[in-house]
């Protein structure tokens, strides 16, 4: 396991050396932002709407009838900013990105395309991996911001329609109890999650083993490892920043 971590760190260092090369090719980055970010939008929208609705139901259920109603707005908004949007969206996007990137790079590995790139004197780490890493690290926080907006709206709307809570009261709760740390902390960790997901996905993709079985394994390891890392790092952030 420590050897694997060492290898991943070395991989990361090598991929990051692609920065000067990739920065001169904005089209390469845009292409990946499209594949990683834009194409994840439908899933993000769908997930966020349901996250908002469920959050309202749960906070209404948890907050006792004796407590003031604006607490529903306050609690729903904060939990969306701190945990729900960052973690749920990261996990959902991770499932999509980690699997397709590892499968795609893995297929290139077993069909010897990665070997071909090497023998042409090009480094697949900076050429293939770095644009994906950069694009994911940029896209994930943006997706989470979109999700936070959508989930909050959906929470407010469902509070109005299901609980009869006026918008003004929901918004009053949001404003009064808003803490900048929640927003910034939630977003900063997603930058980190995006980086971790894409490093793991490209690492397992480029190092895929033998044959079709190898691609299957790479894809599975990639999704399982990056999901687990998101949860572990989220715990550390919660422990370090929000306690």
């Amino acid at each position, binding site marked *: 396991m420590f050897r694997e971590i060492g290898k991943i760190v070395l991989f990361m260092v*090598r991929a990051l050396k692609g920065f000067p090369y990739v920065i001169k090719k904005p089209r390469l980055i845009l292409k990946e932002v499209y594949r990683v970010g834009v194409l994840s939008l439908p899933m993000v929208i769908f997930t966020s709407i349901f996250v908002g609705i469920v959050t309202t139901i749960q906070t209404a259920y948890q907050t006792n009838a004796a407590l003031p109603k604006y607490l529903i707005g306050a609690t729903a908004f904060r939990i969306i900013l701190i945990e729900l949007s960052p973690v749920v969206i990261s996990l959902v996007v991770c499932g999509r990105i980690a699997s397709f990137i590892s499968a795609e790079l893995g297929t*290139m590995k077993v*069909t*010897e*395309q990665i*070997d*071909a*790139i*090497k*023998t*042409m*004197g*090009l*480094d697949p780490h900076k*050429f293939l991996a770095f644009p994906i890493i950069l694009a994911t690290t940029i896209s994930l926080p943006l997706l989470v911001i979109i999700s936070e907006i959508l989930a909050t709206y959906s929470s407010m709307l469902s509070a109005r329609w299901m609980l009869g809570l006026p918008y003004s009261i929901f918004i009053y709760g949001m404003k009064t109890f808003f803490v900048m740390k929640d927003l910034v902390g939630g977003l900063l960790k997603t930058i980190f999650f995006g980086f971790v997901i894409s490093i793991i996905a490209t690492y397992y993709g480029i190092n895929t083993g033998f044959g079709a079985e190898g691609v299957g394994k790479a894809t599975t390891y990639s999704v399982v490892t990056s999901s687990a890392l998101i949860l572990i790092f989220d715990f550390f952030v919660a422990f370090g920043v929000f306690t």
Partner: protein
Amino acid sequence: MIKVEGLVKSVQDRVILKDLNFTLKQGEIAVILGRSGIGKTVFIKTVAGLLPYEKGIVEVDGMRVNPYNYTDMKIIWSKIGFVFQYGALLDSLSTIENIGFGLKENGFKEKEWKRIAFEKLEAVGLDKSVAGLMPAQLSGGMKKMVSLARALALSPNYLFYDEPTAGLDYSMVVRITSLIGNINKILGIASLIITHDLYLAKKFRENIYFLKDGRLVKPPKKVTLEDFYDE
């Protein structure tokens, strides 16, 4: 010169190459014959620095082949052209873009890399009309030809061929075999061919080896290749 001494290489705890020795001098051609699954691809990829090995020396022009040393490998790979068994063309690029890819990424202007790429396309005997086709639209033989053109575009000193004739019809086998011979003779590029095709091997009879039990052995002069192969 390519020098291999005492090479030991295992794949998943199974020893594939044991104490293997081999040399290929500038301008020479060598053919390595062996049954399917014996480790030919593993051998050629190890020599090309695409797979790690446990023991022994692998050198290209006095430089140590080490897949983990990217700085050195870049220099070594600039001298080696690799023709992959199934072509290994990049799926997302057209034929001509595949051939010119290495040049383009190494800083050649579009006009220049296209000129060289078309020149190599013609050199391997492919028609201009395939230039715009995607790899998925090419036949197996054409993919190998494009793979060869792509390797030639970077003017290598050494060419490695992995099963250049496998899976092709007879006329294509004859075409590729004579192409390999001409590239070696006319351009003076040292060539290492691995194959299980006796037709191809016989054309380069002078420098044949068999890969057997993880080592290279020269077939005795008196015995025909067929007899030796059957053993």
